């Protein structure tokens, strides 16, 4: 009898101990343990490598090699050297970190993104490099990522997560063996709620680390004499959400962009003793575009391949604005042709969180071709297609009449006419393309298309 009463009490005590020692403090002490102080030292000096950290390091070293092997890294010496120069300007002079070897590389990814591996590899996607405006904005991104490495954020997060996962598993075990009665119900209730709180603390810790990287990034930019206000501007660039894909979820590992803009502006308030004049920023922008023009063209193709047609148009338009009467006209024409019946910009209604969630669900179910067909069945879609095909045709023609005509513009025209069912015109344009580009890598594909077009329709 007494045994029966004591057992539940032991389980309750055990459960309460776990809840009080791990869950509640984890949530309450988040502010105490997480690094939210305004200016922490640039490097986490007290960090010592443990077995778990070495395992993480081995994993990321392999990941680095895989990126290279799989053709995800952009093998462009000039771009990687440019990133390296900016990165090294930001790293404090004479700094050496155990198990860190700095590498700065562009990733062939149309999504605007950047990340750091704890071994010192910093990756910036072509999608991000193509939407930012100048070198200072790029420095802001790299400074943020450098902080993650210098403050050992990945290792810290991994260590923290491991403790929290262990707590969750212990709680699950307690829940499974809970006694009966009201006590058991209470224990089960605690063990059911606790994981939710623990998960919240995991994301909360991650957001605090991101905040630290943002603020330390500003300090590093100032030290390297980059315009610190560009950290705020780069957040505004990311907040543009051209594709309507920045969906706010219940749990987020990064602070909301608007929130980042607010705290960065307020942090900068006291330090922005120098705001860079617009003229200087314009000069910086021109230099930035000159350096990365060919990367941006490469990215337009990646955007189209990835079905990110609005982003492709946005980047191609920026290229034409910077350097008209060049190959850039072809890329803008490609962007208009592939945009097809879609509107060039999302409406305010389409940019609400619920609309973005609905669009993401729809995108998972339908292929790009199916969505295009659906849009073409609407009056607005048909109107968009009419306007875009006219713009594309005009731009292809301009690309062909430039000083150095672009052969691929014939291919683009061929594809446009094929879609418009102008079969003979399409075949002629394809033939002109193959004539001009004798060593085209897509020769077989185009020849097959010509054969199909020249064949009488059945």
């Amino acid at each position, binding site marked *: 009898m007494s045994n029966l009463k004591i057992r539940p009490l032991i389980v309750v005590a055990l459960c309460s101990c776990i809840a009080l020692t791990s869950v509640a403090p984890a949530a309450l002490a988040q502010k105490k343990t997480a690094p939210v102080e305004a200016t922490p030292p640039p490097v986490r000096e007290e960090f010592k490598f443990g077995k778990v950290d070495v395992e993480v390091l081995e994993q990321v070293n*392999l990941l680095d090699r895989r990126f290279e092997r799989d053709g995800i890294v952009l093998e462009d010496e000039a771009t990687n050297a440019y990133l390296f120069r900016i990165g090294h300007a930001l790293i404090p002079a004479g700094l050496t970190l155990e198990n860190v070897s700095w590498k700065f590389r562009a990733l062939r990814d149309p999504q605007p993104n950047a990340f750091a591996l704890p071994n010192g590899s910093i990756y910036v996607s072509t999608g991000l490099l193509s939407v930012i405006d100048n070198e200072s904005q790029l420095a802001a991104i790299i400074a943020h990522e450098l902080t993650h490495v210098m403050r050992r954020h990945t290792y810290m997060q991994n260590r923290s997560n491991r403790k*929290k996962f262990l707590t969750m598993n212990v709680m699950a075990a307690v829940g499974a063996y809970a006694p009966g009665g009201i006590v058991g119900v209470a224990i089960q209730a605690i063990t059911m709620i606790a994981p939710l709180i623990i998960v919240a603390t995991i994301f909360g810790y991650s957001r605090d680390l991101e905040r630290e990287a943002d603020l330390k990034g500003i300090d590093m930019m100032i030290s390297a004499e980059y315009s610190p206000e560009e950290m705020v501007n780069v957040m505004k660039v990311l907040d543009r959400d051209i594709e309507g894909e920045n969906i706010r979820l219940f749990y987020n590992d990064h602070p909301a962009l608007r929130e980042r803009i607010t705290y960065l502006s307020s942090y900068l308030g006291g330090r922005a003793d120098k705001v860079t004049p617009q003229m200087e920023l314009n000069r910086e922008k021109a230099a930035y575009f000159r350096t990365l023009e060919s990367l941006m063209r490469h990215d337009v193709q990646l955007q189209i391949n990835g079905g990110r047609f609005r982003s492709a148009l946005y980047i191609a338009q920026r290229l034409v604005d910077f350097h008209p009467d060049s190959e850039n006209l072809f890329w803008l024409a490609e962007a208009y042709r592939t945009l097809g019946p879609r509107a060039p910009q999302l409406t305010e209604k389409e940019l609400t969180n619920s609309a973005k969630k609905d669009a993401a669900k729809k995108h998972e*179910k339908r292929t790009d071709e199916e969505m295009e067909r659906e849009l073409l069945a609407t009056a607005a879609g048909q109107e968009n297609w009419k306007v875009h095909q006219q713009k594309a045709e005009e731009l292809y023609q301009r690309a062909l009449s430039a000083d150095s005509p672009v052969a691929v513009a014939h291919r683009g025209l061929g594809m446009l006419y094929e879609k418009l069912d102008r079969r003979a015109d399409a075949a002629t344009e394809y033939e002109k393309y193959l004539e001009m580009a004798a060593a085209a890598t897509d020769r077989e594909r185009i020849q097959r298309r010509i054969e199909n077009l020249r064949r009488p329709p059945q």
Partner: protein
Amino acid sequence: MTFPGLIVLSKFRKSSIPFIAVLIITSAPAIARAQFLHPKISKKETTIRNVIILPAKVSVVRDSMKGPEGMAAESEDLSGRVEKMLATVLEKQKNVKSLNTAGASTGEGDQQQKYSIADFQTKFDDLLPRIMKKRSDVKKARFTMGDEVLNMNLDKSVDAIVFIRGQGQKLTGGKKAFVLLVGGGAAFLNLQIGIIDARTGEVLLYTDPGFKGLGDPTTAVDSLRKALEKGFKKLPVVSVQ
């Protein structure tokens, strides 16, 4: 105050959880999954004689009491093994030859070819969730990767390109004991394999074989072979000329 029903439930759970866990884990070593063929294959209008198997992307994690841990090296090894084993299964069971072209199965080759393969791998990754959402639509010839596949400039004799994706989980000793006592996910390996027409880009076959149990999916040989054999059961055997 006690609730008799809850006590009964609690006692039942305490005694039965390990038993049920063992029963589930031991009785279901292989996951039976369906295969979906394009009408061109099921009606035998197209025959797949030669294929290129692109580098597989199989990722396995070690699930411990302290959460999931990466297994990058083991995942690499397993990816290579799945490629080789699939080639063997196709050749032995279906008389389908796997050709080796520069850049395709080694991931090497010139830069343009490397980019081209990477872009097709990405394109398959984009298409895969849509296929998985409605796998049976492969039978309606709904999915295609477009005629850009020709830009890979593969050997003329190649009829199809094979894409392999996979996810797996291995349990540590502690986690195995935890699963037996408390319940939870067993070790598993799930593969998603798509065969794409090398000339038109159409999805000719989709299959998602897999297996689960308490063993190590990164070293399981027999389970993997059986799963692959089951996964390609419906693919017609090519007559040897």
